[in-house]
């Protein structure tokens, strides 16, 4: 197999840094392969990607050792603009990557920079747009595109250069499930049909298991393991040691193995998982036996009857005429943990912003503790309802962590002793005591997200609303944040979380509101909601793999089939096997 790019003993230190981000790393990328790059936050994935077009070290500087060659060119000898012809680079945030005012200009930009003749540019634009299925959008303003479309446009712009290697660094981290799927399918097609070599870094275990030919695991700047998706993802211990999440299918069978239901090869893809489950059934599950009962929910509290938040036929229309909410009604009781899910643009954020009076209803009414929001101010409401918005960086505006967390308390004119008590408590709860005097923006993203939460918690609000709190976090970071929400919930607070990462929420949320195109599609307990696959599909959400796996062997509509997690499925399977065997033994 021909090598298209290679790293030979590469070590790299950013300027003014004492520890290397890449450590004696060697890797060959073969022509035509789809290579997945995984690893915990801080493993050096992004840096590795940027070495391939010379941005590291040519743009950043720092100390660089070893050698990177791409298409036979040494990354140190060639200017970035030459390497850019061979390597298409796609980064996480589509917003910042689009620099032009129309789709066609975005695709043309790099070609213009390389002085391609206009006639040639005119040939390549439709070609590149067709490859990412964006035909007919030439004249559109990029703002008119959805998140997934924007990221596909970025890919088209890279494709127009006809590169040999496409590097995608966490291209789906900021997209909803539809957008992510669109991007993966397009990349997969480019790889299969055009034979384009792909390097894709990311945390999307299920998708990488499905599409990648080979996976490379990076940790602490070193290459830990390279192998087929089956080899890597079935090594659950290796993944867990590196704070990574195996696909839910794999985790289910890993757990089964632990409880003495041997499975020779752990499946890493859903279809293989379904087949393996079928095999277990054929081996000896008696389907006529009653279902084992699901374990009771650990953290269920019975909510108070008095509604804390309530909306009555809420309609919201934006200035440009977009109807974001089309008549929504529901109540949230004291002490509930509610998940609001739905595709991007379904109206989730628009809805919760009404509770804080950041938006006012076009029609309908919004109440907090029975009071219409019209009679309150934003700062009044903010004392009782804490809102943690999407992007932590636009919610940080102080020079130290301490000042950030005490900002609200100073505004609300608490006595200094009280301020100190609350700040200390809040920092303690979020494990930020060590960085108390640091500048927030000098800390990693996971810490910044926790700083914003600490600052909101310091006000000791009774209700907490988290808007996409886990976006841009790796699995470990997401769990840390969700564990905090659970602790708050157990302490009696009302918690609302908006997310489309459904697989994260079992064990946390109790009630699920599913929204689609400005309407409330479903309001149900989490087990029912996750199994309402039709409703989820209507708003382009996919249930977690464990749910689909469960449905393949248990779908008689009774509550016993409403499994959510690999743990649920594994325990169900082992108990069914056990029951069947007991009966078998009894007959003998």
């Amino acid at each position, binding site marked *: 197999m021909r090598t298209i790019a290679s790293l030979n003993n590469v070590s790299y230190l950013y300027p003014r840094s004492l520890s290397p981000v890449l450590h004696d790393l060697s890797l060959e990328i073969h022509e035509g392969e789809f290579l997945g790059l995984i690893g915990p936050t801080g493993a050096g994935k992004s840096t590795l990607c940027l070495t391939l077009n010379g941005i590291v070290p040519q743009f950043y500087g720092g100390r660089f050792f070893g050698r990177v060659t791409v298409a036979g060119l040494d990354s140190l000898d060639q200017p970035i603009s030459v390497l850019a012809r061979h390597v298409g680079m796609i980064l996480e945030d589509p917003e910042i990557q689009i620099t032009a*005012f129309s789709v066609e200009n975005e695709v043309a930009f*790099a070609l213009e920079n390389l002085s391609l003749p206009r006639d040639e*540019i*005119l040939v390549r634009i439709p070609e590149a747009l067709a490859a990412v299925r964006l035909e007919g959008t030439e004249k559109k303003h990029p703002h008119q595109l959805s998140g997934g479309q924007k990221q596909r446009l970025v890919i088209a712009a890279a494709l127009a250069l006809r590169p040999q290697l496409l590097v995608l660094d966490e291209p789906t981290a900021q997209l909803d499930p539809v957008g992510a799927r669109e991007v993966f399918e397009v990349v997969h097609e480019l790889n299969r049909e055009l034979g384009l070599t792909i390097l894709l870094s990311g945390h999307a275990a299920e998708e990488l298991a499905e599409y990648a030919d080979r996976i490379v695991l990076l940790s602490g700047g070193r290459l830990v393991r390279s192998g087929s998706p089956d080899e890597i993802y079935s090594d659950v211990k290796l993944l867990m040691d590196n704070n990574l999440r195996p696909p839910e299918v794999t985790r289910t069978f890993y757990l089964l193995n632990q409880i003495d239901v041997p499975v020779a090869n752990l499946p890493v893809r859903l279809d293989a998982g379904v087949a393996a489950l079928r095999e277990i059934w054929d081996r000896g599950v008696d389907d006529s036996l009653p279902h084992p009962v699901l374990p009771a929910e650990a953290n269920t509290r019975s909510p108070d009857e008095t509604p804390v938040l309530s909306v009555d036929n809420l309609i919201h229309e934006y200035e440009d005429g977009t109807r974001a909410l089309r008549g929504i009604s529901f109540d949230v009781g004291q002490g509930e943990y509610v998940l609001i899910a739905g595709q991007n643009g379904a109206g989730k954020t628009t809805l919760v912003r009404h509770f804080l009076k950041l938006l006012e209803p076009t029609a309908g009414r919004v109440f907090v503790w029975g009071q219409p929001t019209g009679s309150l101010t*934003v700062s009044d409401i*903010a004392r009782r309802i804490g809102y943690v918005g999407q992007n932590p960086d636009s919610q940080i*505006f102080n020079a130290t962590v301490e000042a950030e967390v005490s900002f609200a*308390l100073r*505004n*609300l004119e608490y006595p200094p002793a009280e301020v100190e008590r609350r700040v200390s408590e809040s920092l303690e709860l979020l494990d930020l005591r060590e960085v108390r005097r640091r500048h927030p923006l000098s800390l990693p993203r996971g810490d910044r997200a926790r700083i914003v939460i600490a600052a909101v918690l310091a006000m000791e609000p009774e209700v907490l609303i988290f808007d996409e709190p886990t976006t841009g976090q790796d699995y470990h970071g997401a769990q840390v944040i969700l564990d905090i929400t659970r602790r708050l919930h157990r302490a009696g607070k009302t918690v609302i979380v908006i997310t489309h990462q459904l697989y994260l929420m079992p064990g946390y949320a109790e009630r699920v509101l599913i929204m689609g195109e400005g309407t409330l599609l479903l309001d149900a307990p989490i087990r029912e909601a996750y199994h309402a696959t039709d409703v989820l599909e209507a708003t382009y959400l996919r249930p977690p793999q464990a749910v689909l796996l469960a449905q393949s062997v248990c779908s008689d509509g009774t509550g016993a089939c409403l499994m959510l997690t690999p743990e649920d499925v594994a325990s169900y399977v082992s108990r069914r096997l056990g029951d069947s065997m007991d009966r078998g033994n009894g007959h003998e």
Partner: protein
Amino acid sequence: MSSWMLRTVDRDSVFTRIDFRAKVVAAAVLTLVAFVWESPVLTALLLVIVMLTALIAGVKPDYLWRVLRLLAPFYLFLLLTQGFFAGEIILARTGEEMLTPLLSFPEQWWLIGGATMTLEGVLYGFAVIFKTLIMVLALPLVIFTTDVNAMVVGLVKVGIPYKVAFVFSATFRFFPLLFDEIQSIIEAQRLRGLAFERMGPLKRARVYARIAVPLILGAIVKSQMTEVVLQSKAFSGSSDRTYLHEARLTALDYAVVLASIFFLLAAAIAYLGFDIGRFAGPL
């Protein structure tokens, strides 16, 4: 959803088809003539034409109204000062002996006693208002009806280095994002108990000032990212590049340029030869 999105007209009209360079010439002529003219009648006429053109071109009435409202206090001040104090200048310019009084304050009033507002002064004030409005409105007429890419190519064609033209267009691209950022930081502060709605203008100004630091830090991070993105797209700032958009001057563009020049000449001859356009001139 950005409320600061550049208000480009979405209507395709004859104005969007005129080349950027031709539009700049026309706007420059308009501005120059408006600057020289002092006749309230002529400036009013020109203003009406500019406003109608803007509306036909698809500039939203809402936008015009907003500009007027924004400038209203300034214009009121202008009318009062001109009305009361322009008398001397007008006497000197027109060579007339007497001005027409509109109202005057009794002599015994402190400070303003004896001051007289004159008809001529007020008319002069109106002429100043009209001419500034023409200048203020000519610019959006050019910018809003021009595709940014066409602007960049147009600028490069008249000899401005590509790098400068690119910075110009990038400003259009990133300013709306900056304003969004400001909005979301203020929002975050309100959510942390900052009673923005109860603040006076001075306190509000202080809040805005405090935002500068995170905003600049954010901008530095962003501009570094932007540079990585640009370099990955083979951008080097070199003028040695090609363009998707062609900027060819059409007959329409030449017509616009010629008409502008003709108008300028006519206005100059009328002004110098026949005093048309002068304050208290024939028109």
